């Protein structure tokens, strides 16, 4: 009797828990401040983290963040090591072919950061120069696309900025929120660097990536994102991290 009762209880618990609060594991390359990075308390934090937590509250899921190196991040999704990627992933056609994306949660552009003393206007003045970017980011693609510019790829965008600061490369291309943080806010760097320009291109949208065909996870995330936007929570978060909601 007792045994049956326990079994029944367990059965109920197992079926009920996902609807109570499903845990979604998000992979993130936490080297991309202010979007996602490791804070002083060694926890992954940032704009995207706040956003997902807010979305989770609205849609009823518990986000859990897992630090993953960027250049292996998509492989891990495909092999099911986590449920989603929330790591400032720009939605591109190539990526759409390999995975599914949520509704865009942020719009970014590619910014070129150069030394303060440089008089280059934008990427077209960088012929023969070496530009750094994080490996296989849209910034890296932009550098590769520019004719006559040498590219150098880094595991982390921070290393690219350090190399720029040390004078080994002539510029860094990355998403504009990141560029703003490094070039305008960081000690040392802010006296040595400036944002030269926003590289003209189509606007880029960040989306949360899920494994192709994982409609359940996608629906939850989209539901949360929509609610967050409607209720104005998104604006609060943007203002908190970027200083403006634009």
């Amino acid at each position, binding site marked *: 009797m007792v045994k049956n009762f326990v079994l029944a209880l367990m059965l109920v618990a197992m079926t009920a828990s996902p609807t109570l609060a499903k845990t979604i594991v998000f992979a993130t390359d936490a080297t991309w401040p202010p979007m996602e990075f490791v804070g002083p308390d060694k926890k992954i934090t940032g704009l995207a983290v706040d956003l997902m937590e807010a979305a989770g509250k609205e849609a009823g899921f518990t986000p859990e963040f897992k630090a993953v190196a*960027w*250049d*292996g*991040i*998509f*492989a891990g999704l*495909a092999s099911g090591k986590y449920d989603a990627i929330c790591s400032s992933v720009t939605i591109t056609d*190539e990526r759409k072919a*390999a995975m599914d994306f949520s509704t865009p949660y942020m719009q970014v552009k590619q910014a070129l950061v150069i030394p303060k003393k440089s008089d280059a206007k934008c990427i077209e003045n960088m012929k023969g120069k070496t530009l*750094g970017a994080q*490996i*296989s980011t849209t910034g*890296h*693609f932009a550098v590769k696309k520019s004719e006559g510019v040498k590219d*150098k*790829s*880094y*595991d982390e965008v921070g*290393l*690219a900025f*350090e*190399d720029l600061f*040390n*004078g*080994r490369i002539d510029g860094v291309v990355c998403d504009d929120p990141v560029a703003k943080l490094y070039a305008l806010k960081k000690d040392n760097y802010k006296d040595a660097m400036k944002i030269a320009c926003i590289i003209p291109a189509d606007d880029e949208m960040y989306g949360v990536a899920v494994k192709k065909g994982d409609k359940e996870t996608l629906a939850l995330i989209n539901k949360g994102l929509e609610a967050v936007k409607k209720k104005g929570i998104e604006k609060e978060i943007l203002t908190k991290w970027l200083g403006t909601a634009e």
Partner: protein
Amino acid sequence: MKHQGKCAVEEPQIIIDVGDGAAIPKPSDKGLVSAWRLSFAGALLVLGYLLVFHPDPYLRIFKFIPDGILITFQVTVCSIALALVFGLITGLGRISRNKYVNLVASTYVEIVRGVPLLVQLFYIYYALGRIVHVPDLLAAVLSMSVCYGAYMGEVFRAGILAIPTGQTEAARSLGFSRTQTMYYVVLPQAWRTILPPVGNEFIALLKDTSLVSILGVADLLRRGREFASESFLYFETFTMVAVVYLIITLVLSKLVSIMEERLSHHVKR
């Protein structure tokens, strides 16, 4: 005096821990089928098969990585050359009778052996980068050779110490100075004992050059990573990268074994 038990000419015998290098083919492995031949033929077959029968994406990958292979090759060759120099100096320093020279050499070995190569790479490139602007390739070569110089220093030291003192005494009694004795008598013999473990270090070094990709040096591994993370063809890309590394390593290990044979054929009993 009792001398009966003593062998007349002692064959220098030392046992030196081998690193994680690929096995250098032994002269005894000369049969038709040896592990080396099997791996080499296998690697070439796999490479050929992939390129011919699955040109998409393998040929695309293969076309993407040659400059990475070149960089890996350059870093390896330069690092080996420099590490040999560092190793010889360190080895001699470790057996020096001058206690300051000895102390400096020993401290260098202790420090380098106590810090992981990856950390050394970060240190020379990024930490010291604030003070001296070492270009990335040079930083890579420097880190590799400083690290492997210390390892090789130990091998050199052991190899030199393995030469019977009778050799030194014979040379000194003829009127050779300490340096001349080292140059004409000890080192040419030590080289024979040193080569197999040094060869292992060469191969370990070649494989460890893959670490320099963290400096943004576009070596074979980084080219592979770039291709993979852009195309999402992880399996295909890293299969290719592994096969190419394997082929390079096997070629190097063959070279070392050829050198070994050349150096030792006339002293064989």
